[in-house]
């Protein structure tokens, strides 16, 4: 994966993360520290506890490789001088999302929320927003797995109140 060209022999410290289903992931320290939840685990115990395994109760091992891949690449983008061309970042981001189903995207948002990683959360929520733009109410409900708990009357009333937002511009 990302460890392709570690030129010098300086050992990068690794931290072990444990996903919800018990699988272990060895992660380079700077990458792991992008996640506030992991970081907060070590605050005040800088050295002593680096060997500990950090349990991530809400993150399934299915999504860990993708999340780590995102951070390895983005932290590399940030470090590079001169900064990488916008197209390169865009291409990576697009490829990252390409084969993710809606459901996988939701699960990853939940994982990013739990891990408290701003960059990934921004990226994924924007992706979710893009997927529901210009879509019908029914589509959006299905997308998020929302159960409509309005009575038909209630729903009709809200629609009527904000009728303009559901139709095109009024005819005047």
């Amino acid at each position, binding site marked *: 994966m990302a460890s392709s060209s570690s030129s010098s022999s300086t050992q990068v410290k690794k931290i072990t993360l444990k996903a919800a289903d018990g699988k272990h992931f060895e992660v380079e320290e700077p990458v792991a520290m992008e996640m506030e939840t992991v970081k907060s685990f070590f605050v005040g115990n800088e050295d002593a506890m680096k060997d500990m395994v950090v349990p991530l109760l809400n993150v399934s091992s299915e999504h860990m490789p993708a999340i780590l891949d995102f951070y390895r690449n983005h932290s590399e983008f940030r470090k590079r001088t001169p900064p990488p061309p916008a197209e390169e970042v865009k291409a990576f981001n697009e490829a990252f999302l390409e084969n993710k189903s809606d459901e996988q995207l939701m699960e990853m948002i939940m994982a990013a929320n739990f891990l408290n990683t701003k960059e990934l959360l921004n990226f994924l929520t924007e992706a979710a927003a893009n997927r529901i733009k210009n879509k019908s109410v029914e589509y959006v409900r299905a997308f998020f797995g929302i159960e409509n708990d309005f009575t038909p009357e209630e729903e009709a009333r809200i629609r009527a109140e*904000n009728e303009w937002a559901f139709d095109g511009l009024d005819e005047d």
Partner: protein
Amino acid sequence: MDELPDFTIHHIMIYLSAKEVVQTSVLSKKWFNLYVSFAIFDFHELYKWFIGDLSNKNPATFRKNETIRFHKRLNRFTEFVDAFLVRFSNQKLCMQKFRLLIGLLDVEASSFLHDKWIELALRNGVKELDLNVQIYKNAMYTLPWTIFTAASMNALTLEGCKLEHIPEIIRLYSLKCLILNKVAINKEIVQKLTSQCPLLEGLKVSSCVLIVRITISSYRLKKLSISSCIKLKEIEIDTPNLLYFYHSNHPILTPIVNAPCPWELHFKNAIDDLGNKVDLDAQWFLNMKDFLGVSNQIRFLVMDVWSKRVQIA
């Protein structure tokens, strides 16, 4: 599948247009509540959407049926904003951002409503306030003085309105960034704002056509930009910790500026009372020479001038 946590849903809403956010109100009860509690109000964009094809026109040139259409759309927009703000403020939540663009045909008739909206935003501890009041005649909307008491506001952007009735003590304790564009202000207000906002780091004053004197004294200020203030005659700036100074105007005589940082200067023709460019004369060049002598850190100098008489080699 589990539903997303509330926080992440609000996060998604950030990337939706204001109209799309309104559409989420109908998804479910949970989403309705999330929609009502979404703390970012971009009525700037909604206004353009409501007013549609009329938003880029000057109402002075409206034909009769356009005026009627404009009023009808403006009323709908106003009703929506009003209902939304009242509903939000009933929840006693903190407002992140309030951004409003509105065009007014009758400033006096509608100012009570805008006062009310601003009050609601302030009462909900708004952090970012961005008001743009398009004016078509000379009448300008005067902001309520309470705007100077917004202790939690950290960014204020104003366009097209008037600031007066400044209270003795202002309480903009969190204000970091202030942008004034086409705002009717005077020397006292600028002076007071810059000396009494303890955290103010960025100030931009542009196209404030009435201001004649600018006096600023601040140890905090890091970025200062003054541009297109056509009546400007005097500036007196004491900002020892400034990091960047931008000035774009006709050169004025004997500016007093203590700003040991890089400067970017754009010199333009003076503008007369009718809005016409005044041809360059000897005085203009003397003023410029004088101005350039004030700093030895001028990074950029641009002369964007027009002249019939002078040949610039």
